[in-house]
C-alpha cells in the first residue's frame, strides 16, 4: 500500500473477524450465514501518526478497534508493532502488550468500576505492571498526572468515586490513566461522542498533546467527520467491514473519490451555513454484513454501479500521494 520500503511502525495485516449468525435456521441449506464484521483490513501507520477511522454504525470500525487492543480475537490476520507480531506478544508477555497498546472508551461514565475511588482505579494499573517502587510513589505519580491534566485539586479528585465526577473529568482521567503506562499505540473509540460539545475540545486537545508528547500512534474512531478531519493526519473510510477509501484527511474530506465517501461527506451537515453542498442521495440503509459480495459491497446503493461492479470486489486504485480508493470506476 505504501510506496516506501521502510517498515511501518504499526502494520495491520489482513485483519478479519467473522461470526456465525445466531438464531439462524436450524437446517439451513447452502452457504452458512456469517457476519463478516471486519473483512480483510490492511493499514500502515507511522510513529506519532493519527489515523481517523470513519463510517456509519455497523461498519466494523469499533470492532476493529477492539481487535487492535485484543479485547477481541481476529479470525484472521495480525498486527505488527515495530515489527513484532502482537499475536505472539500477547501470548508471551501479555502485560508488555497491555503497556504498549491502550484504549480510550466511548462511555466515560462506565469506564471505571463504580465501587472504587479514583485513587484505587488509577493505582491499579501501576500495581499490575509494577510501575513505581511503593504505593507512596505511585500516589505521587497519580497526583502529578492529574495536575498536569488540569484536574485540580488532585488529592480531592483521588478521594472521589466515579459517580461524583462529570463526564469530561472522567474521560480525562481515563486518558491520563492510560498514559501512565506509556503506551505507543492508542485507540480512541468515539472518545467524545457522549460528552457535551463545549467540553469536547479539551478532551481532544489533551489526547493529541499527550500522544504527541509520547510520540504514540493513535487510531481515532468516530462518526463525526468534521472532528476526525480536525484531528487526523490520515483518514480511512469503512463500509461493511472494508476500507473503501484512504488518504490524508484533506484528500478524503475535500476530494472524496469513492462514491460511498462522496455520499457520506455530502450528507454531512457543516456548521458553516454558506457551505451549500448538494447531498448525494443514496438509497436505503447499510445492510448487515452477512455474506456480502461477491461484487462491490456498496454496489446495490451506488448511483454509479454497473453490471461489472456486481461481479468482483474492486481492487484499490492509487490516486497519487497515497490516496487510494476501492472503486473500479475511478480514473476512467
Amino acid at each position, binding site marked *: 500500500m505504501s510506496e516506501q520500503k521502510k517498515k511501518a511502525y504499526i502494520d495491520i495485516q489482513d485483519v478479519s473477524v467473522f461470526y456465525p449468525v445466531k438464531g439462524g435456521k436450524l437446517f439451513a441449506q447452502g452457504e452458512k450465514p456469517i457476519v463478516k464484521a471486519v473483512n480483510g483490513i490492511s493499514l500502515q501507520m507511522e510513529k506519532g501518526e493519527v489515523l481517523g477511522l470513519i463510517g456509519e454504525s455497523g461498519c466494523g470500525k469499533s470492532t476493529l478497534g477492539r481487535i487492535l487492543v485484543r479485547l477481541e480475537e481476529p479470525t484472521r490476520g495480525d498486527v505488527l508493532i515495530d515489527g513484532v507480531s502482537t499475536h505472539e506478544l500477547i501470548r508471551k508477555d501479555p502485560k508488555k502488550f*497491555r*503497556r504498549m497498546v491502550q*484504549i480510550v472508551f466511548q462511555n466515560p461514565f*462506565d469506564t471505571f468500576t*463504580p465501587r472504587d475511588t479514583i485513587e484505587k482505579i488509577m493505582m491499579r494499573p501501576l500495581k*499490575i505492571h509494577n510501575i513505581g517502587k511503593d504505593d507512596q510513589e505511585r500516589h505521587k505519580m497519580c497526583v502529578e498526572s492529574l495536575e498536569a491534566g488540569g484536574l485540580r485539586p488532585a488529592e480531592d479528585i483521588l478521594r472521589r468515586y466515579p459517580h461524583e465526577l462529570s463526564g469530561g473529568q472522567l474521560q480525562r482521567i481515563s486518558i491520563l*490513566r492510560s498514559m501512565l503506562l506509556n503506551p505507543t499505540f492508542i485507540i480512541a473509540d468515539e472518545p467524545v461522542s457522549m460528552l457535551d460539545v463545549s467540553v469536547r475540545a479539551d478532551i481532544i486537545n489533551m489526547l493529541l498533546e499527550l500522544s504527541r508528547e509520547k510520540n504514540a500512534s493513535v487510531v481515532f474512531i468516530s462518526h463525526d467527520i468534521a472532528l476526525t478531519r480536525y484531528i487526523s493526519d490520515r483518514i480511512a473510510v469503512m463500509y461493511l467491514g472494508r476500507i473503501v477509501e484512504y488518504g490524508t484527511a484533506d484528500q478524503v474530506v475535500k476530494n472524496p473519490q469513492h462514491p460511498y465517501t462522496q455520499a457520506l461527506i455530502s450528507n454531512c451537515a457543516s456548521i458553516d451555513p454558506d457551505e451549500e453542498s448538494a447531498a448525494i442521495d443514496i438509497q436505503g440503509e447499510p445492510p448487515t454484513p452477512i455474506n456480502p459480495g461477491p461484487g462491490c459491497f456498496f454496489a446495490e446503493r451506488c448511483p454509479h454501479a454497473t453490471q461489472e461492479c456486481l461481479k468482483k470486489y474492486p481492487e484499490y486504485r492509487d490516486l497519487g500521494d497515497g490516496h487510494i480508493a476501492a472503486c473500479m470506476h475511478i480514473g476512467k
Partner: protein
Amino acid sequence: MKLIKKILRTIKSDRLLLAGCIGICILLFIVVAAPLITEYDAKLFGPDALVAPGDPAHPLGTNHLGQDIWSMLIYGTRTSLMVAVVASFISALLGIIIGGIAGFFGGWADRIISELINVFLMIPTLFLVLLIVAMFGSSILNIMIVIGLTSWPSNAKLMRAQALSLRERTFVKSAQAMGENRRQILMKYIIPNGVFPVVANTTVGMANAILLEASLSFLGLGDPTVISWGQMVYDGKQYLTSAWWIAAFGGVAICLTLLIFYMTGDGLNHVLNPKHGKAGE
C-alpha cells in the same frame, strides 16, 4: 466508620428497608434472649392443657399437651431463623458460583446451565423437597440442606444475568485492557458489582425457606424434636373448633417474620436499583 455511616444512611433512606432492618434486629434479639423473655421451657409439658389465651400464667394459652404457646412462639423463632439462614446460605453460595460461571464464561457451559436453571425454576420445588424429606428422614438438618439444595436456581439466574451484562460493561473491558487477568476480573469486578441483587434476593429466599419448612411441618414431615411454627399450626388443626389459638398464633408469627424479610428484600432492591439512586434527575 465511614462505611457504617453510609450503610446507616442508606437504610434510613428507604422506609421499607428501615422497617425490615428493625424487624430483623427484633428477631435476632428474640433468638438470643429467648430464655429471658419466656417463663417456661417450650418443650415442657405443663399440667394445664388447652388453656385459653388471657390466662395470667399463659397469656397466649397452652396446647393440648400443656405447652405454653408464647414460649413455643419464642423458641420457634430460633428454628425458623436457623432454617432461613442455613438454607439461604447454601442456596446463595450455589447460585453465585453456578450463575457466575455460566454468565462470565458463556458458551456451551452457559447454554446447558441456563437451560437447567429454567427447568428447575419451572418444576415444583415443594414436591421434590417432600419426596426427599420423606425418603431421607425429617431431621431439621436434612430439611435445611434439602431446601438449600433445591432453591439455588433463582439466585443462579440472577447472578448469571448480572455476570452476563457486567461482562459487556466498559469498566470490565477497560480492566482487561489495563492488563487484569480473568480471575482478577471475576473476583474484583464481576462479583463485587453483581452480588447485590443476589443478596437482596436472599432475603426473599429466607422467607421462602421458612415457608417451606412450615409447609413440611404442616404435612407431617417436620422434625418432631424441635419447636417449629409450622408444627404448631399442624398440631392446632385437630383442635380448630375447640382451641383455635394453637394454630392461629403460629401462623401469625410466620406471617410477621415473612413480612420482615419481604420488606427488607424490597427495600434493598429499591435502594440498589440505579434508577432510584439519583432523585434529582
